[in-house]
């Protein structure tokens, strides 16, 4: 549409002058690097980009981006970002949130932003712990977790963030992790390209309060056998030489099988564009803990009208029908009489 040429930016253009204050070794650094490195590739301008966060370690993120930004209220970023995105569909709006921020106190706003399909790129830093408040269990912490607030182990059943997002009618759902910059960048790129709400869960290590939570899956020596990289249009297989794959049983259950046993043709072919979210949901629930093979990549990417555009369309439709707003006419719209 517009002919404005976005000046080429470099990673440096996207970095603010603020001192980064996460703990040394925190996974948040890697995510920030990936985002800052990706931004020049997206062909957008820092002044048209807005980062909105809630409260938590992860939510400090906007301070480090040389864009417009707001570090807002615990849990409320999706709502505030909805205001920005609906008011200004011309902007690129990102939401940065933590597992407590988005799934506990802000659960309501998250699901409604997804349901409305507000044009937001939502990055959920899931470290399965409350980092900023120094280590209480979170809605994604595993049952039995011993923390300061659960000395005898947590008895809460955790959320699966992707299941929540899919259940909330999300049109784009993906997962990546903080140790693989390239993977993150690719997932973020697709999330950004998606029009509507994009939801990305990032496995993020909190080395102070929940260290190595994802090591069994994402560490260098585990990855090959534990990470299932979803690629649209391709059979879902992983492991050394792709010896394992995902198969749907006659009972409708997804199972991980040896390809040698079931044959290549039995493998499920990943289709991120399927309207029906059932398979994406099944894939999201393929693993139930941090010690079994887990799918990554884009689970779902379907098109649905985005909220800000639809609000704008109604405004345009109303103007077309009624003409531009006229206060004289408004004041007389309920009938008047004259006194001489």
């Amino acid at each position: 549409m517009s002919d404005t040429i976005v000046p080429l930016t470099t990673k440096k253009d996207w970095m603010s002058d603020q001192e980064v204050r996460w703990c040394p070794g925190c996974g948040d650094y890697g995510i920030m690097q990936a985002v800052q490195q990706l931004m020049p590739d997206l062909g957008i301008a820092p002044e048209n980009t807005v980062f909105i966060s809630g409260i938590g370690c992860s939510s400090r993120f906007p301070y480090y981006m040389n864009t417009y930004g707001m570090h807002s209220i615990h849990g409320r970023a999706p709502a505030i970002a909805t205001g920005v995105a609906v008011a200004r569909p011309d902007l690129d709006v990102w939401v940065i949130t933590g597992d407590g921020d988005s799934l506990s106190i802000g659960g309501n706003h998250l699901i409604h932003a997804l349901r409305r399909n507000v044009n937001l790129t939502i990055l959920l830093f899931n470290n399965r712990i409350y980092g900023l408040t120094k280590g209480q269990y979170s809605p994604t912490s595993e049952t039995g977790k011993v923390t300061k607030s659960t000395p005898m182990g947590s008895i809460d059943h955790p959320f699966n963030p992707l299941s929540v997002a899919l259940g909330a009618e999300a049109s784009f759902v993906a997962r990546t992790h903080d140790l693989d910059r390239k993977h993150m960048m690719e997932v973020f790129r697709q999330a950004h390209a998606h029009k509507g709400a994009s939801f990305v869960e990032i496995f993020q290590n909190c080395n102070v309060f929940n260290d190595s939570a994802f090591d069994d899956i994402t560490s260098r020596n585990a990855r090959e056998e534990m990470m299932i990289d979803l690629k649209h249009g391709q059979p879902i297989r992983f492991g050394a030489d792709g010896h394992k794959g995902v198969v749907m049983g006659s009972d409708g259950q997804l199972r991980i099988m040896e390809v040698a046993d079931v044959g290549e043709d039995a493998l499920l072919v990943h289709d991120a564009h399927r309207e029906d979210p059932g398979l994406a949901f099944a894939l999201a629930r393929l693993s139930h803990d941090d010690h079994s093979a887990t799918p990554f990549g884009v689970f779902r990417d379907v098109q649905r009208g985005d909220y800000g555009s639809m609000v704008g369309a109604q405004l345009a439709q109303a103007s077309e029908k009624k003409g531009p707003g006229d206060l004289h006419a408004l004041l007389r719209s309920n009938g008047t009489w004259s006194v001489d």
Partner: protein
Amino acid sequence: MTDTEERQDRQPEQISHVVVRFAGDSGDGMQLTGDRFTSVSALFGNDLSTFPDYPAEIRAPAGTVNGVSSFQVHISDHDITTPGDAPNVLVVMNPAALKADLHRLEQGGLLIINTDAFEERDLHKAGYDHNPLHDDFLSQYRVVEIPMTTLTQRATEPLGVKPRDAERSKNLFALGLVSWLYSRPTEPTIAWIENKFKDLVKESNLAAFRAGFAFGETTELFDHPYEVKPAQLPAGEYTNITGNVALAWGLVAAGQLAKLPVFLGSYPITPASDILHELSKHKHFGVRTVQAEDEIAAAGMALGSAFAGHLGVTTTSGPGVALKSETMSLAVSLELPLILVDIQRGGPSTGLPTKTEAADLNIAMFGRHGEAPLPIVAAYSPANCFDAAIEAARIALKYRTPVILLSDGYLANGSEPWKLPVPEDLPDISVSFQTEMNHTDAEGNPEYWPYLRDPDTLARPWAIPGTPGLMHRVGGIEKQDGSGNIDYSPANHSKMVHLRADKIAGIAADIPPATITGDADADVVLLGWGSTWAAIDAAVQRTRRAGTKVAWIHLTHLNPWPPNLGDLLRPFKRILVPELNMGQLCRLVRAEYLVDATPITKVQGLPFTSAELEAAIQEALS
């Protein structure tokens, strides 16, 4: 024939004003009946004031006192402000309405009763163990008994309307009757019925309305009709307006005057929902409305829109104000414009959701964490809600601050004639966005400081996303004045707390000074705010007409107050503060000015009557 001629001689008696109250079951259409009577009276040129009074339940058990829905309207040939203390005429459609509202009717008042609804069963439901029509229970009133349901059925029968369906038109029979009684023109109502309804329902309603009118004309139940001549209102074009519509239009106008798109985030709640409904109709003004998932989100969306350069508004009532509290504190810290509209209702909690109260002054003043002062504007009449909305927007934009605008259920649903303002005469409240760097760093490079204040207003610049070079981050963490960088240092926090307070306090110089109405040399002054305006106005007028001196100050700005308020109050021997709460403004005034103010309180979910305030004035003087 001769009969008719005789009756046509019955010339209307001129009266200066009348208060009519329509009361019936929630399902009887009393709000509509009252509303129509109001509309024709408005078109006829009367001054008027209305008071819809209805239950919280959409359909409380039919026929019970809890399910009674009433509409009181005061029409007059002179300037009036209240819907009247006691009705002169009470129309009751069933025994429950009689039970609920009889005590309001003036002694000797006209009581028009639909006798068809006084069967054993109806009486029982209303809690009567006798039929009040059969003894001298009603002897102090002028009772007119009319079988309205039967007459409506008879009138609509030729159209083929079934008796059960015909019953639904009986409110229009009542409207027709009262329209005749007060010599209202019939054309507007007929046109309205023709427009609003279709097919058999339309025909049935028209027949009922005409039958009611003809019934008044042809029967001898009333000696003669009455007439309330048009009021001598100042020349101009008028419309009849409720507070909520006026407030919504004020917000639309504010957007136009500020040259900013309006963004409303709202979650439905009585009695504020009508503002959401009304604003949703005005998309062609560029008004965006989002029905949010809750009040927290509604406030958050409005704040997000403000960050993005819109006029952000969120509308609610008491419980919603509580939910928005954290966002209001953030808005104070971010120093962004935002308007929170609170249509107060009886509390705490769900309280009296459809009844009026003005008990949210404390939460407006103090209902945030930390030191978080913000300006408060209060509307005083239905029509004034328009100006109050513009004023709230003006302050929010100019001072980059959240503002709370207080209205209440009484103003929200009540209506009055409003002389249309000329849009060209409304104030320009536009502000400019920051587009340039405003500071130089240590190396001499230009930079943008989001908290570099205007020395006069102490407002910070407003640079919106999309502006090249002015990228910046805001947040709830304490920031350094000027640069806006995170700064937790003791001296800076103290400085920022003081700056935010000074900014709000400074608005006092930018609002109209308080003025005294009535006798400046009186012993007693009434200090009012909000919707008590109407009752105080009537009470002050009557007191003065009776030869007693009294003064009155009405506040439209509750934070900060007009700077001259203390000086105005101190000379009076007695300061009376009437409020629909337990004395919230009174306590603030005592604390601020060390004056011996006395509260006059009422917490019944009802507005003050002028008689109550007149009595309070007399008591203070004795």
